[in-house]
């Protein structure tokens, strides 16, 4: 029944601190070519004597430690990673190689512009390509991640509206929105009003029309939205907002469903961000680094964070003279190393290849939906784009919820889908296979979920107590939160160190 994996011996490992003993070392510094300086004599009381309990281990212990820990992880390199909204597509290794190109990796942000033209050209070309993909007039590459891009975007809207005389008070968020949307609006100084979704999982246009007035600064909309459905009324939505002088912010977390077939700038979006670590394949790395470029229409361009790239003579220069700018959102020019990877991805695909990737992402999601629909309740009948969302309604009747099914999937050798999000779907299973999955892997995954549906009918306890095959069984998150232990201390955790 479980075809993808079988059990396999892996190594136990303690914390590095528990392997430490005085005098062990994994480093070697060159001989000092200048006279040594006594720290105590030049720093006086500012000099520290030691870093208490900092590890001391040998080189082989370092490599074994991290290699052993790595084997306790799951990654795209091991198989399908169907987290909805997270877009866990293959991360091409060529991108890692070019980001380490010494002339780029060692570039200091303050080295002279004349000696930074390579970096600036990379940034300029990426801006140009992203403008074309988004259908936007300008792009800033400064934001460090998606939520940071959202924050930048809402500040742009605020500054623009201020320049029109009134920054307004409220930001509207559909109840299906990512948690970052309302959190961002608050940090940017707005009140949040939630807008209900209709029975198709889309924005309820009538409710929206009622909510939009001169107090509304913007609607933050994800499109396709978090149930994987394209907002078919997007043009009406845009005109409702624009008629009252409000702006549309698009959370581009799901931009990978649109690249090459539809452009936010063409369907009324004023400002958007895109997560390069989703749509443009830069690695998630266990939770970052990301990058969240923001695209805007012309009227918002003067407000973009500075500095901006400008053509001067035959080369590029940084333009700091941006009187209307919202200011910097980050030091320097953005997560350059991530931007390099995204540009390499775009170059490898080219325009036609990017569109093909989108079509394949739609195909894999719809294939999984079609195969699973007989066994799981689809949340909305509306056509799926790049992901499909089910509810655990049928399984809940047997007392098994989406979180349990997710844990059982681990036994089948898969990372689970996104659990319990979006919140408007009861017990959501949000599945995004991405375009880089072969059919064989998709079938193994569907077979696993179908098999689990059967197990729930016959033996729900098997699923409720899962996982059974992982090296770590179900983790007690409640105790972790109740009595937080967030660092190692000598002697404190020795009793459990037997692992």
């Amino acid at each position: 029944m479980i075809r993808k994996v079988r059990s396999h011996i892996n190594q136990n490992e303690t914390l590095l601190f528990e392997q430490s003993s005085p005098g062990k070392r994994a480093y070697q510094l060159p001989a000092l070519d200048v006279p040594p300086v006594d720290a105590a004599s030049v720093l006086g009381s500012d000099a520290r004597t030691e870093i208490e309990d900092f590890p001391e281990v040998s080189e082989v212990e370092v490599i074994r430690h991290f290699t052993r820990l790595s084997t306790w992880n799951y990654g795209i390199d091991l198989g399908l990673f169907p987290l909805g909204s997270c877009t866990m597509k293959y991360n091409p290794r060529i991108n890692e190689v070019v980001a380490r190109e010494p002339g780029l990796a060692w570039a200091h942000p303050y080295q002279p512009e004349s000696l930074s033209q390579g970096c600036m050209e990379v940034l300029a070309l990426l801006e140009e390509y992203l403008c074309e993909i988004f259908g936007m007039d300008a792009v800033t590459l400064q934001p460090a991640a998606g939520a940071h891009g959202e924050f930048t975007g809402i500040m742009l809207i605020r500054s623009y509206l201020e320049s029109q005389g009134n920054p307004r008070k409220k930001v509207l968020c559909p109840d299906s929105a990512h948690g970052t949307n309302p959190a961002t609006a608050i940090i940017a100084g707005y009140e949040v009003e939630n807008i209900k979704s209709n029975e198709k999982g889309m924005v309820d246009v009538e409710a929206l029309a009622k909510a939009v007035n001169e107090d509304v600064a913007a609607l933050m909309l994800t499109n396709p939205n978090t149930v994987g459905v394209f907002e078919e009324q997007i043009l009406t939505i845009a005109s409702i907002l624009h008629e009252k002088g409000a702006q549309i912010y698009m959370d581009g977390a799901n931009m990978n469903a649109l690249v090459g077939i539809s452009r936010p700038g063409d369907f009324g979006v004023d400002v958007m961000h895109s997560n390069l670590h989703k749509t443009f394949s830069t690695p998630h790395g266990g939770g970052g680094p990301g990058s969240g470029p923001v695209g805007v229409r012309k009227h918002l361009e003067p407000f973009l964070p500075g500095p901006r790239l400008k053509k001067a003579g035959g080369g590029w220069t940084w333009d700091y003279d941006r009187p209307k700018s919202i200011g910097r959102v980050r030091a320097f020019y953005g997560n350059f190393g991530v931007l390099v990877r995204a540009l390499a991805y775009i170059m490898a695909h080219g325009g036609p290849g990017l569109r093909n990737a989108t079509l394949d992402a739609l195909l894999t999601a719809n294939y999984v939906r079609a195969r699973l629909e007989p066994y799981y309740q689809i949340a909305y009948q509306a056509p799926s784009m790049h992901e499909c969302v089910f509810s655990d309604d049928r399984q809940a009747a047997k007392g098994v919820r989406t979180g349990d099914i997710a844990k059982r999937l681990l036994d089948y050798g898969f990372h689970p889908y996104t659990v319990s999000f979006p919140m408007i779907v009861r017990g959501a299973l949000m599945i995004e296979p991405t375009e880089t999955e072969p059919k064989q892997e998709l079938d193994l995954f569907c077979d696993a979920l179908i098999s689990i549906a059967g197990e729930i009918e016959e033996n729900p306890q098997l699923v409720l107590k899962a996982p059974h095959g992982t090296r770590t069984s179900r983790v007690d998150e409640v105790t972790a939160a109740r009595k937080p232990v967030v660092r190692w201390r000598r002697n404190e955790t020795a009793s459990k160190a037997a692992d």
Partner: protein
Amino acid sequence: MLAVCGHSTLEELYSQLPDEALLKRPLNIPAGISEYEITSYFQQRGQENASGYASFLGAGVYRHYRPVLCDVVVSRGEFLTSYTPYQAEMAQGTLMTIFEFQTMICQLTGMEVANASMYDASTAVPEAAMMAARITGRPRFLVASSVHPEYREVLDTYARNSRTQVATFGYDAATGECDLKDLDAKLDDHTACVIVQSPNFFGVIEKVSAAAELAHKRGALLVMLFSEAVSLGMLQPPKSADIVAGELQSFAISPSYGGPFAGIIATKEKFMRQIPGRLAGETTDAGGRRAYCLTLSTREQHIRREKATSNICTNQALIALLATVFMSVYGKQGLRELAEQNLAKAHYLAGALDRRFTGKFFNEFVVRTNGKSPGQINGALENQRIIGGLDLARFYPELRGCMLVCATEMSRREDMDALIQAVRA
């Protein structure tokens, strides 16, 4: 596959899109190219930069050697291609490294709790300030003008939109330390926190405890920043601070034209529930074995939405891992020895130059260029494939004729001698 979906063409998969929303032409992006061509393109861009130059630039981004193991570990697909460890049973590797990272940051900073990383120091500054505002219920941030100018710009941007105010206090023109008298005069009962950086932007080591004492007297918190993490191998941990925010770029993270880096926020245990970002915690699994998971997530946006402590979601996990491997390789003795080399090199260089400030310094300091402009000196050095110091007039008009210079373990004596020559010539 199409047939299973009930379609006959790929285009049918998006037939629900309104016609006006469709792009009816190909993207204006050239067709895809091969791995070889991509590599060549980026090699050429790299060569257009200062490839292979020696450099004395610091100012928040430092040149340190990256031990080979760092790249070996972060290149493992199980780390590189994994997601945020929400599914703890399948992500113990990432979780345990985060737990180790948090511990090492606490050991370095003398704090009790550290989060799993922030984007970088510049964004950790407003996050730390907003944290102080939540704790104290006060809206005003008092920041030293000796804090990195770009960090202050970012703080200004955040504050402008969040009903908080930023005020600045000066630095002592002789020592280069922040001006404690000015700080005392500007502290008031609305001040949530005082923000100082040590070593500061001029490389000068601040009197952090004295600043903390003043802040505490008025009920404000003390936020201590650092941009040169190697200094923590040698300097007293800022135990008098309430919040420590900083930049780990020095720990094996490439300068990479300014990012990606990894910031940190660390604090006292009593403020743990106000810390932004992710935290890994230790617990047990159903079999009673030690296990790790993300914890206290009720602070975070995906649970709390508009009531979250921050909108931050992504952190810098892989970069934090890079720093963790770096800290493991160097360890207790190595970090000390590394710091000693930095101290020795910078003091060798400074000994032959005219320092603008008298304050104590670690590996970075301000030089008077005496008669010549920093631009002239740097121009002469460029011909020898050396990048000189940062012209401080860019950020501090009153420091015209001064440049900020940094020496690390990677600065060779012959290049330092060339810099000395260029300044004195």
